[in-house]
């Protein structure tokens, strides 16, 4: 039994039953398929996280964001600037206790380089209802290129616990249909 020493002392010489061997091979091949699926998606899939990231201080990141906000704010909403940057521009989003700042307004079908960083603790960028989720660290600036393919109003939820205000940490993003270029 499994609770007693193997009866056959040289158990490692016993042949493996066919059914088991077959399953080991199937499972191994399936592992290979799953492994190469990730590699394949890097080459042909459209959703891959970039490896682009920099070390940055909170001051530098907020200065960069402020510059963008100063240049491209189009209106105010609940005390947040709504920023509509030109297509192709680098856009910045600050995570801090307990806000996503500012509100970005992007154009559908256009690509943007989105820079994300936290000014204090770790936060979780969770764009809803699209459901893209990223871990946002302080001192690291993550840069991803996103292309919104649906328009409307989107919520940015924080899904990394960041203290007592965590559940109030919500942001917003708008995606508008192209106004022609």
């Amino acid at each position: 039994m499994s609770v007693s020493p193997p009866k056959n002392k040289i158990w490692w010489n016993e042949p493996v039953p066919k059914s088991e061997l077959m399953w080991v091979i199937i499972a191994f091949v399936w592992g290979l398929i799953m492994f190469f699926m990730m590699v394949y998606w890097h080459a042909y899939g459209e959703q891959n996280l970039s490896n682009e990231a920099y070390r940055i201080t909170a001051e530098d990141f907020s200065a960069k964001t402020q510059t963008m906000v100063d240049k491209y704010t189009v209106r105010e909403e609940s005390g947040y600037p709504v920023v509509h940057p030109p297509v192709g521009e680098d856009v910045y989003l600050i995570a801090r206790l307990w806000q996503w700042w500012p509100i970005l307004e992007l154009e559908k079908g256009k690509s943007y380089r989105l820079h994300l960083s936290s000014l204090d603790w770790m936060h979780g960028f969770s764009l809803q209802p699209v459901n893209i989720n990223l871990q946002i660290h302080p001192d690291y600036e993550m840069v991803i290129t996103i292309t919104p393919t649906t328009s409307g109003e989107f919520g940015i939820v924080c899904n990394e616990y960041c203290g007592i205000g965590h559940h109030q940490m919500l942001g917003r993003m708008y995606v508008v249909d192209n106004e022609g270029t």
Partner: protein
Amino acid sequence: MAIKEQYRICQTTGLRVYKSAENLIKANAVVAVVFLLVGGIFGIMVALTRWKAVHLLPADWFYLALTAHGINLLVVWIIFFEIAVLYFASSVLLGCRLATPKIAWAGFALMLIGALITNVAVLQGNSSVMFTSYVPLKADPSFYAGVILFAVGALVGCFVFFGTLVIAKQEKTYEGSVPLVTFGATVAAIIAVFTIASGAIILIPTFLWSIGYVNHLDTLMYRTVWWAFGHSSQQINVAAHISIWYLISAVTLGAKPLSEKVSRGAFLLYILFLQLASAHHLLVDPGISSEWKIFNTSYAIYLAVLGSMIHGLTVPGSMEAAQRKKGYTNGLFEWLRKCPWGNPAFSGMFISLILFGFLGGISGVVMGVEQINLIIHNTIYVPGHFHATVVAGTTLAFMAVTYLLVPLIFQRELILPWFAKIQPYVFGLGVAGISVFMMGAGTLGVPRRHWDISQADAVLPYDFPGAANLMMGLNGMSAVLAGLGGAIFIVVVVGSILFGKKIASSNEPVAAEEEATVVSEYGSEEHPNIPGTLILVAVFFTSFVLYYFVNWKYLAEVWPLR
């Protein structure tokens, strides 16, 4: 034979039980169950808070309760019980006295004191940092100190286990190789040593930081090292509960491994590859290359997943072979129908096996795919997944084996046998519910560790779809069911230990065991015939492949990003 120690022989299993080991197993198991109770109560409160219609706790209490729930169950309950399992798998299964019982008691004391210190810190309300305690969230220094003490105590337990293996070998209490179950427990203990070392590397600096000796900790470094600890500790659980699956099938059905080589090889894959999986937690973090993520998240081409998939065949396969030898050979599944479904040790083990494989295993591999993690990371899908692994899998397996330990170690008959009989079903159903509904809510984007997804008082509120609230409501109801199952377990076990009918002890050896001879030699002549298991495995594999590709399809629907 330097040390002569008192032992007795169990009249049902023929196992030799030494007093020193018996007392330590009792103490560790009892303390484990007490913490299961405490953590379970917090769990129900958490689930009821996340059920919108109930919304039980205020925000600060919610985060406190969630921290207490995670620590007391994932860490304290599981590890105390694992120490009991280690002592059982070494001393009892090898029929050997326990090495250095005094030191083992010291380890036990350290663990208990550590657990209490951390609990006090959490309950005081200034350490609601979750069990992950990500910096720069800062807890009271005693929070980290308690966890460190606890870990040191657990490390002592591992070394007592290794010491016992050495003594058994020297004193020749068994012949040949250790039993498979002991082998699996050894794998768990080896992984535990690695795990605790990683824990020390991260928690000691964090403790120093909390008292002001270190002034900065990098968050990415913290997460990387913390998860080398946090994820590996899950592999201890897997190795431990798979050993228990083998143990229970041996005791209840007389099952023996189809092939020692394959089952042991599968355990070895865990030691070799499981540690890589801390990458699972870092897939959407900045500053880590995709090459590193892919290699590590797949445990180098899924070799540890291979290990689990092998056990997925060999555990039910060994049961089928044993049952067929007993004459249950009609059709594909007579062997399964004729299993002792009324024995909670057996039913608990089988439910644990099914839920762990189908819910926990498949979801775990899928969310560990580098790109698919983008649509899952930190949503409540994640707790959904690990309640299938660590609650339906590990906790239920531990409950099941407790039904064997009560007569064997505590020498008491179970009280309330009818309740004991239904307990694994009630708990299993409840836990399957919380897992499935949390996973469902997670695919709708619901965040984990979140007090209020209706966000009534946020400046920029976002409304989750109604289905998300429905899922969280169903989760709350399942939590009540799981809680009921947990409560029955505790009442039956504690009641039996205190009031159960005593089983007479004796040190007469028992006549050679019936069960063991029912299943004759395995090996070359005897091609085990396991068609039923092959069907089960085929169903499993089909679900796995389908679910895997469905998630790639979900991923393909979100906004392109690179």
